[in-house]
């Protein structure tokens, strides 16, 4: 039966995540935005809690549950609300608190999602409990991940990796880095594999930490791989170069992480709207849901417009997660959610900031004083994990039934 409210069974989880956001994240939000590259030690205790929740099969962080495509998976007809839905709901709350701190939660990295999705049983056991970052982007390629130049050459019981990786989220703090490298550049994307590289491996060097517009509490690292020897057992999944399947394995991860990034933007947008509603109330502006926007003050009308887009973004995100739980292919919906949420997060944050004026624009410690930070944080959510433009391409190709050769 059609029902779009937060399921009862997840209300406790949402409340808990909100508590974390409010009691742990918000009080240290401004501190780590200023002290970029200082490790937020306060999160270590929290991470232990989340590990427990992951064990219990509950929620977790950013995609750590991953996606296992063991079977085609059929819904048995009964509606499922599972870990995909609970995770997006949790992420929305945590990012209402602070996006960068959410990204900095130990052992909740994108690399963990990749491992969970593609690793074999032995690897799953070996890397259990370790924090893994993901290294795909290189200076010359972000969206065009098939164009990566980092190479992996087989040599006895090792692969030798050479290349350069940038924009690795949690690259500094994580224990492991999942590095995308190609076994043979002439064979295209089918030859691209991911390798788990332990910190401290000779030839694997962190060369830079980025200074960013936003999400400053999240460390963004650059690495150089110079004749870095990685055990062959660290190649995730199969070393076969299957031109048919090729890329699909690792790209599958993104079907499940796209709704999570969408959820981040939704949580952030709601934080902006909550504060702005408070500010408008204090300014004597009433927001009346019964009356048309044209009958209300410009500020109220503007608020309604933003809240409407926020609602659309939120429901699209829940839809994508719900479909994943019910084993329905959700690639299209995941992209729609990410596209809508990404752009709405930015629009809402910037507009709320405009309405708040100096109260939002000046650096503050809490509440509306964080609006300018949220506006800076929002921008990356429309860029990483598939830019707005890439999402539109994915959606358009799917609707128009076009290949990447036809619709560029």
């Amino acid at each position, binding site marked *: 039966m059609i029902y779009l409210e937060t399921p009862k069974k997840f209300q406790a989880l949402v409340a808990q995540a909100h508590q974390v956001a409010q009691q742990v994240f918000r009080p240290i939000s401004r501190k780590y935005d200023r002290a970029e590259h200082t490790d937020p030690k306060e999160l270590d205790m929290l991470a232990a809690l989340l590990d427990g929740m992951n064990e219990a099969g509950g929620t977790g962080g950013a995609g750590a549950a991953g996606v296992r495509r063991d079977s085609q998976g059929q819904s048995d007809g009964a509606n499922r609300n599972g870990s995909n839905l609970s995770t997006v709901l949790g992420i929305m709350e945590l990012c209402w608190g602070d996006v960068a701190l959410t990204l900095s939660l130990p052992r909740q990295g994108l690399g963990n999602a990749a491992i969970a999705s593609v690793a074999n049983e032995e690897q799953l056991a070996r890397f259990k409990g370790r924090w893994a970052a993901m290294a795909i982007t290189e200076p010359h390629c972000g969206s065009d991940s098939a164009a990566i130049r980092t190479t992996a050459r087989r040599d006895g019981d090792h692969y030798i990796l050479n290349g350069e990786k940038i924009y690795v989220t949690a690259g500094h703090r994580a224990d492991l880095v999942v590095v995308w490298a190609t076994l043979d550049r002439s064979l295209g994307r089918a030859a691209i594999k991911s390798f788990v590289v332990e910190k401290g491996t000779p030839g694997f060097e962190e060369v830079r930490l980025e200074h960013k517009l936003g999400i400053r509490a999240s460390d963004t690292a650059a690495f150089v791989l110079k004749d870095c020897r990685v055990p062959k057992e660290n190649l995730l999944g199969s070393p076969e170069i299957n031109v048919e399947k090729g890329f699909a394995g690792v790209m599958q991860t993104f079907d499940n992480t796209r709704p999570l990034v969408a959820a981040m933007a939704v949580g952030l947008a709601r934080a902006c709207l909550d504060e702005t509603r408070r500010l408008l109330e204090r300014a004597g502006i009433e927001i009346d849901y*019964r009356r048309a926007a044209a009958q209300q003050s410009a500020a109220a009308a503007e608020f309604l417009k933003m809240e409407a887009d926020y609602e659309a973004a939120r429901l699209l995100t829940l839809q994508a997660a719900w479909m994943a739980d019910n084993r329905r292919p959700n690639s299209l919906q995941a992209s729609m959610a990410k596209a809508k949420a990404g752009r709405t997060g930015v629009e809402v944050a910037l507009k709320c900031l405009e309405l708040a004026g100096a109260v939002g624009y000046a650096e503050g410690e809490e509440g509306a004083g964080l609006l300018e930070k949220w506006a800076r944080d929002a921008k990356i959510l429309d860029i990483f994990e598939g830019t707005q433009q890439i999402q539109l391409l994915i959606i358009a190709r799917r*609707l128009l039934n076009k290949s990447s050769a036809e619709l560029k």
Partner: protein
Amino acid sequence: MTKLADRAMGYGLRALNHFAGLALVDRLRLRKPAERLLYRAARGGFRSAAAAGRVFSATRKLMQPERPARVGESALFDLTPTEEQQMLQEAARSFADERLRAAAAQADAACAAPAELLAQSRELGLAALGVPEALGGTGSERNAVTNVLVAEALAHGDLGLALACLAPAAVSTALSLWGDAEQQAKYLPAFTGENPPAAALALMEARPLFDPFALETRARERGDGYVLEGVKTLVPLAASAELFVVAAQLAERGPALFLVESSTAGVSIEAEPAMGLRAAATGRLRLDRVELPRSALLGSGEARIYEDCVQLARLGWCALACGTAQAVLDYVIPYVNEREAFGEPISHRQSVAFTVADIAIELEGLRLATWRAASRAERGLPFAREVALARRLCSDRGMAIGSHGVQLLGGHGYVKEHPVERWYRDLRAAGLMEGAVLV
């Protein structure tokens, strides 16, 4: 199978059978020639009497009003329609895509829906959907979501014709939700009978920044009844409607809803063609010192009821917009794949492809927001916020979709050879109309 499913199946199958047995349907003439008014496509202040309606009388007495049961609690997030809903959706969708779409351009030009088409829609039993079984309808539960799904499906065929088909159901739904025992017994049997009347829910008034909570149509208490004075605008099926639900400001109490039979003295109609919704034969409803009995007041004039009415109507418009916006998307995709320019399909251009993607994204968001509001409404949860947000999306994003529809077809989108120009006109209504439909 449940009783609802049986009856719904009956209605659905009956509808499907019609498409095979059109000759029979063509012989049906449900409109008396005398009621066919001289409807002109141009406004000229030409005023005439409203339809000489039937006499409504109760054939049985009810002890108390019948209300649809509230939908039970759900535990889980779910986007799957029930089996009954899917059946109704399919029946409505077949009817819309096969019949409404084909008749739409003509009906738009003529400012009227073909009689046979309205007869077929009556066979679908739309006016009976919201009516409790005890009163001959097929509604067992409060079914705002079902009504949304059906409205969406019909509007995929054509919004103007969908409005023509659904307008009477607004009145039957209003009676089911808010009518007292006497009102239900008197009027509802007609809606579930063989020959349901045309009817309309008239809220809107003709002035800019119209606020349905600040009405100029007035109801004065006089003796043992009321006297209504005012003008309603953009009323669907105005000339043929036999029964209206009219919103009027009741003295100091606030806006309220009144049952007005078309044959009442002082009721007159003026043709009022508009930018869109033309197949629904919109008109102005003029009330010149219309005297009504006390029993004409619906829902005791309770503020909450009027609020629900306004919001459920807006929600109905969101549903119609979803259906027509989907029609736009379904139409432009094959078009841009076939149309070539500079040696390849125009769908290969990012500007075109991204516009298609944006239509899909915004439509999906609008639809989910509409469904959420409807799902809350039928469970008795507060839904004002959700309707306001869906309405906002409908008005902004829904209209943008209509505009994109024309743009993607270029010059071809501008002429009446293609339906997108009509959908542009119709989608503008969805964000500004009040009343006329209910879910």
